[in-house]
């Protein structure tokens, strides 16, 4: 991510914030304690059922992570755009637009006219069979003309957080909660991919490589991402989304697999536990929400 270099220039704030952390250890604030209504409890259960990747709950609120999983995987439909190709492909490795191995793709016909072979009823509890492809899950890389969708998974090397000295995996390449909130509310493109074209000139393609965006589009803000509506989530629900995105495994940046060849590095799964090559070490597991408790599947 191009943002990386700018964040590295913020050592001063890291020191300031490290001092604040020491003070904060005295002022530590209470975690969530409000009563859970039945509708929200159902959403948390549905969220843990829907996540196609295991999560690391260390340091997070398990209820918020489940709710975030719900918003990302159901009502928010995030993976629809933030995946280069969202449905499970038998044999994992990404291929081209040969659809023949997309056994998880529900838009397709079953054999003999199509590859669709997924059945929710047959899905084992451990998450070993997927409808959504976990190796591309919210890892970005789908082309939208001007830009590719961004990789929302954590990136151990790209942390912008003042907590970076500690072992954290933050959403979207390492964005802390307050920065994430600001991005979703203001729409600011922290990767700064486009310049504003001079008045009277037209948009030039090429995000990050000299391209520019012409008025009326505002190059400062994300153009395809629907942040003007996503920011209407309550702050708590947006925090749930951030906690979930901070809990999922890292996936290396993907290019649109139907376009120029990508640089995907598939993660390795064993017994429902992901062995990630780009996250800080964590314990990634599938959970379920039963009788008010989040327990491993």
């Amino acid at each position, binding site marked *: 991510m191009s943002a990386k270099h*700018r*964040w590295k220039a913020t050592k001063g*704030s890291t020191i*300031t*914030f490290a001092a*604040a952390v020491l003070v*904060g250890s005295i*002022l530590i*604030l209470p975690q*969530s*304690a*409000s*009563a859970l209504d039945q509708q*929200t409890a159902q*959403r948390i259960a*549905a969220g843990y059922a*829907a996540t196609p990747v295991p999560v690391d709950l260390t340091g*997070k*609120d398990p*209820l*918020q992570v489940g709710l975030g999983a719900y918003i990302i995987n*159901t*009502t*928010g*439909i995030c993976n*629809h755009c933030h*995946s280069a190709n969202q449905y499970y492909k038998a044999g994992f490795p990404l291929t081209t*637009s040969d*659809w023949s191995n997309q056994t998880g793709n*529900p*838009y397709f016909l079953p054999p003999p006219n199509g590859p669709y072979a997924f059945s929710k009823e047959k899905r084992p509890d451990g998450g070993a069979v997927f*409808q959504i492809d976990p190796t591309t899950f919210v890892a970005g890389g789908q082309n939208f003309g001007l830009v590719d969708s961004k990789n929302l998974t954590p990136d151990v090397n790209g942390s912008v957080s003042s*907590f970076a000295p500690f072992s954290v995996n933050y959403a979207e390449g390492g964005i*802390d909660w*307050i*920065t994430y909130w*600001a991005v979703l*509310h*203001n*729409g*600011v493109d922290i990767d700064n991919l486009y310049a*504003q074209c001079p*008045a009277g000139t037209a948009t030039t393609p090429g995000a990050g490589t000299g391209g520019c965006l012409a*008025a*009326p*589009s*505002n190059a*400062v803000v994300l*153009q395809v991402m629907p942040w003007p*509506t*996503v920011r*209407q*989530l309550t*702050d*708590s*629900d*947006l*925090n*749930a989304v951030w*906690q979930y995105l901070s809990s999922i495994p890292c996936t290396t940046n993907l290019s649109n697999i139907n376009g120029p060849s990508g640089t995907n590095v598939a993660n390795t799964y064993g017994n429902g536990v992901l062995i990630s090559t780009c996250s800080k070490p964590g314990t990634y597991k599938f959970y379920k929400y039963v009788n008010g408790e989040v327990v491993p599947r």
Partner: protein
Amino acid sequence: MLLEKVMNARTKSAGLLAGLASLVGVALLPAQPANAQQKGIETAAGISTPSCGLGLRPYPSCPISADDERIAEGYRINPVPLNLTGLDPRKVGIGSYWVNSAGNCDGCHGGTNGGQYTSAENPQNLPVALGGTYTGNYHSSTATPYNPTATENPVSFMGGGANFGSPTGACDASGMGGCGATTLLVRNLTPDFSTGVPLPEANTLEHFIQTLRTGHDFQDVHLTPGTATYVTAPADGRKLQIMPWPAAGSATDYDLESIYAYLTAIPCIPTAAPPTGTEAPPTHKCPAADSPTYGTATYHLYKYVDGQVQQVN
């Protein structure tokens, strides 16, 4: 106002900004207003921060939202007058919350006679002061009464009609079907009054939920060979194409019922005439007296206060 902050953020270190905002926010935390809508706090210094999650821990957490907060937010961000006759106002609020926040349904389903935002009200456009068209966050010129706390264009809200088909009939590049079809019209989600009662997308609740759960297209517009909407293998023409029903359909029963209730309450918009050679979904019938004229006897704006809906106008 936010835009200025965005511009500032680009010239400063965002890490520093976030750190400062966090510290200011922590100092402010006890002063959170009782009627806070769980939205951001504007500090005296003009730095906007989230209203929660300001604890100094690696993964700061907000208290989980109660549904009452989502309902209030749903009414706050709903852009159109509503007919609540016979509907559960809590469900209508939750439906609006999902449709108008994370779901961004109007992003694709916004009608072709105006789209999701007018150019002057599109937060993704360059501000007027910088040579663009964006004048502010809220509606200034559209039909009245409008909801001053909503941003989406009420005139075309959920009217559908855009074409998502590939000119060459290629399958959707990201795997959402569409193979063979050059015309894939976005459906009109506003209620159809052909049967005398409002039915979103001319579907009953049972069919609506089945459509989202299974993708089944009750209007069967992709099954006739020779038409521009005909879908070929490997895509399954019995199902909706492009529409992200596999994700949306994983929502809870309550949330799908809520979305249906909300789509029942919004004003009807007539379906645009379909292109020649296509099989179009049935044309919506709108009752002349009610819609899309706002502020009639049955369509009103509401807010949700202390567990009750209150009519605003």
